[in-house]
């Protein structure tokens, strides 16, 4: 079936899993065709029998979101460097295709080979947010894999998960064979190769999982017994067998400069959310914001070397042809060689008309100067995240910025020519009062005043301030993991108070206010700190139509409410209680390095309004030092202010800390 034209062979044969009439009918069919530039094709090796492990790596959301995720690309890069392993990608079929696949019985397939996922050795799913839990069941269901790990036979792929939500994996315990607690750069290859070797030796799935539980960081939920007290709280959480560890320790990669990194990232055919090259400059954060899970989970801070970053930037841009490079980290300003890195990037790439985007920078003179070089001041806006409206509440959350910082930053920005400012806040933070809510409006007004103090001739028209609030959800492994949440109405009342106060401000016409949905916040809160009993709820909701809950247009709270009722679960048990610090929490068996004792201390200090210095100012003995790296091991200041005052972690957890309270 060929035809020649100027020496070109027209090949009309299709290797796609979806037939033409389906592809023509659905939205954005290019989501499902694979074959993106730099995707790894090991079909020839597969056909000649040289692939021993097939790994399907899944982001349980739509293609455009999943393709923007760096972690999956790191894992694909890492696994595909193993000659006999082929790691491919899977994303959630959009609802239009979902129903066609269900109707016609088309099995879920991986993008590269277009082969059914059911035939793979592993299905790994990254858990980035709680509202994707129904989508996980969709993936299993469409793949034709039994939803419950207990029902899977020897031929089924091993279903595992990693990512931030695995730090409380319990709501999903029924559905996964194991959870990977930690970073892929550590033991991911080991778990894959162990499967290969045990499969070759004819060992069973159960034998593999038992053996796997001995690898640090691997949590096999079926190997643990859980018991509850009459009041619904957790009574005990114990391994079933003596060889299974009682504590699962997070695995951390201490040398990121030598870790695998996608030097030729994928280039999608269609526009994805993060349509640029992403350069991770460091992992971890020194700041210690008490609401921030990532800030605790990814301790200690680990920087990549400047030389490595320069090399990666060069390779990634030339290998993709992307027009933009974005620096990724939790707080880019804290990267110690940021000026040198930016000098290099601007010097080398601006002339090639490549954009440089710099999220998560602190607004100071240095960063304003840099931003002026890389963006059009007239068109762009600056973003501040004060998170709370008053200094009292910012101290409670340990945000580490003062009103003066914000005023100085916005003033410098206005004088530099910017007139658009975005402000991010959270509502529903612990100890929040009406004054704190109104404080959001007052802060926005104060920034406006700041703008109009500039002589009219030097101003760039009117100032535009956008205030956005989201509702705070307490997360495991943060000092706020014991904090209560609120009811949906209560959240909306809080947003209403902010709205009314903004409307009463002098420059209210210059201030736009946007707030987040409240009902999905409640659901997120339930799963964030939930336990194993929620598995039934997730299954019920999926079977009754819950899907793509992270998408406002698809989110159906009524299905979830029905699911809670049908399963006899009081969802407010998980949200409204302030948990006592002596309660056994479902995730207490995981050890992230940062100790429970540190978090208890931080929770107490939060309620007392005391701040805690960041890691570079002073070590507060969080416990992450156990990993043998990070700021704790950086050179200290001459005044000795950050000298570690304790010798071992055991000693630290036993001793009482006596920091000076700033008050």
């Amino acid at each position, binding site marked *: 079936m060929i035809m020649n034209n100027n020496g070109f062979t027209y090949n009309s044969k299709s290797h796609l899993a979806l037939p033409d009439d389906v592809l023509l009918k659905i939205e954005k069919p290019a989501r499902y065709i694979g074959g993106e*530039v730099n995707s790894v094709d090991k079909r020839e090796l597969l056909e000649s029998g040289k692939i021993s492990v097939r790994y399907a790596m899944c982001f349980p959301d739509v293609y455009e979101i999943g393709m923007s995720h760096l972690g999956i690309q790191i894992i694909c890069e890492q696994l595909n460097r193993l000659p006999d392993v082929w790691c491919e990608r899977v994303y959630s079929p959009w609802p239009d295709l979902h129903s066609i696949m269900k109707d016609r019985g088309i099995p879920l397939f991986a993008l590269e080979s277009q082969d059914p996922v059911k035939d793979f050795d592993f299905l790994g799913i990254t858990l980035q947010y709680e509202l994707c839990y129904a989508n996980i069941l969709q993936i299993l269901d469409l793949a034709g894999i039994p939803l419950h790990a207990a029902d899977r036979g020897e031929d089924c792929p091993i279903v595992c998960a990693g990512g931030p939500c695995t730090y409380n994996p319990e709501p999903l315990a029924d559905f996964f064979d194991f959870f990977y607690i930690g970073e892929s750069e550590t033991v991911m290859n080991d778990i894959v190769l162990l499967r290969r070797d045990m499969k070759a030796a004819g060992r069973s799935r159960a034998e593999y999982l038992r053996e796997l539980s001995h690898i640090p960081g691997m949590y096999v939920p079926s190997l643990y017994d859980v018991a509850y007290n009459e009041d619904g709280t957790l009574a005990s959480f114990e391994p079933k067998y003596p060889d299974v560890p009682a504590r699962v320790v997070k695995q951390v990669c201490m040398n990121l400069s030598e870790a695998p990194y996608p030097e030729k990232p994928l280039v999608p055919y269609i526009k994805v959310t993060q349509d640029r090259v992403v350069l991770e400059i460091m992992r971890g954060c020194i700041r210690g914001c008490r609401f921030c899970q990532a800030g605790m989970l990814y301790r200690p801070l680990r920087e990549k070397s400047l030389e490595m970053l320069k090399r990666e930037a060069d390779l990634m841009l030339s290998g993709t042809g992307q027009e933009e490079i974005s620096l990724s980290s939790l707080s880019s300003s804290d990267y110690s060689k940021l000026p040198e890195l930016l000098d290099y990037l601007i010097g080398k790439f601006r002339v090639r008309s490549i954009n440089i985007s710099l999220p998560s920078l602190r607004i100071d003179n240095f960063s304003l100067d840099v931003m002026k070089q890389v963006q059009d001041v007239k068109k762009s806006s600056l973003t501040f995240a004060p998170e709370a409206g008053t200094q009292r509440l910012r101290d409670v959350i340990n945000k580490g910025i003062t009103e003066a910082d914000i005023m100085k930053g916005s003033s410098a920005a206005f004088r530099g020519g910017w007139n658009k400012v975005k402000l991010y806040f959270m509502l529903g933070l612990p100890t929040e009062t009406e004054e704190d809510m109104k404080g959001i409006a007052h802060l926005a007004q104060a920034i406006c005043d700041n703008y109009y103090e500039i002589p009219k001739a030097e101003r760039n028209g009117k100032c535009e301030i956008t205030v956005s609030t989201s509702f705070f959800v307490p997360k495991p492994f943060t000092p706020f993991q014991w904090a209560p949440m609120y009811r949906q109405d209560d959240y909306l009342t809080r947003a209403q108070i902010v709205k009314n106060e903004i409307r009463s401000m002098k420059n209210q016409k210059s201030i736009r206010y946007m707030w987040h949905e409240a009902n999905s916040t409640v659901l997120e809160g339930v799963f964030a700190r939930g336990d194993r009993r929620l598995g039934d709820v997730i299954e019920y909701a999926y079977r009754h139509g819950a899907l793509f809950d992270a998408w406002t247009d698809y989110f159906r709270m009524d299905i979830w409410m029905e699911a809670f009722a049908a399963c006899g679960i009081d969802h407010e048990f998980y949200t409204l209680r302030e948990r006592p610090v002596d309660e056994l929490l479902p995730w207490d068996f995981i050890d992230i390095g940062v100790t429970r004792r540190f978090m208890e201390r931080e929770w107490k200090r939060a309620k007392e309004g005391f701040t805690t210095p960041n890691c570079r100012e002073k070590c507060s003995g969080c416990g992450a030092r156990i990993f043998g790296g990070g700021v704790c091991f950086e050179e200290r200041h001459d005044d000795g202010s950050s000298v570690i005052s304790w010798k071992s972690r055991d000693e630290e957890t036993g001793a009482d800390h006596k920091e000076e309270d700033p008050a």
Partner: protein
Amino acid sequence: MKVRMKMTKTGPIRYVGHLDFMRFFQKALRRSGILTAFSRGYSPHMLISFASPLGVGLESLAEYVDVDLAYRDDFELSESDVQHLKNMGLENEELPPVPASEVLAEMVNREMPEGVRVLLMRRVGVTDKAMALVTGADYLVFLKNGFLKDTDLASAIASFLAEKSIVIHKVTPKSESDVDIRPLIRELAVSNKGAAAPEGYERALFMSLSAGSAANLKPETVVEALCRHLGQEYDPLALRILRTEMYAGDKKPFSEIGEAF
């Protein structure tokens, strides 16, 4: 120097829409190492223009795209051409000499997936615009087995073309109107190229239709009108469409426009 490339877009990439394909093409050019010109201003972009957008799902053996390259143009330049280059920040005389078109084509092809190939590259005038030149296009329309299965296509086409006018009701997001498509059908015949057909599509129609900004007729519209003429049900999912050539003026193939280099 401005070049016009002729390239194919076949295989799975036919599911990539026009705007996405343009962005994909720009990234391929960046990877290729070819020196391209950029617009001026705060966010400079490549100067790329496709002759005619191809719908999602359609394949083509003859996509034409104009690209401004940062190579010296050794053909005769008018005053306004020189000015045009200056507006892009380019001094023609200071630019490097252009490699042979085959070399440039190979640089691009190395960056393309199977199914996308630059077949030809010719130099065109600095201010020429492919989009403005398009007057017609040829298509092969493969019919899915079972679709119009009891119809003798040759006689159906004969009676269809015998109509003095074929009026269709055209609805766009902006307007509704009745259009006579008969004058826009230059040629319509049963094709003997069925041998190149995809599996499950044994018969094919050849169409030469008006295209471009003045009057544009889509091949699927012709099949729809043919079905209505025959009193048969139209099925948009039963077609696989391959664009085979584009024309300027009075049927001058695009591949003959411009100068070889």
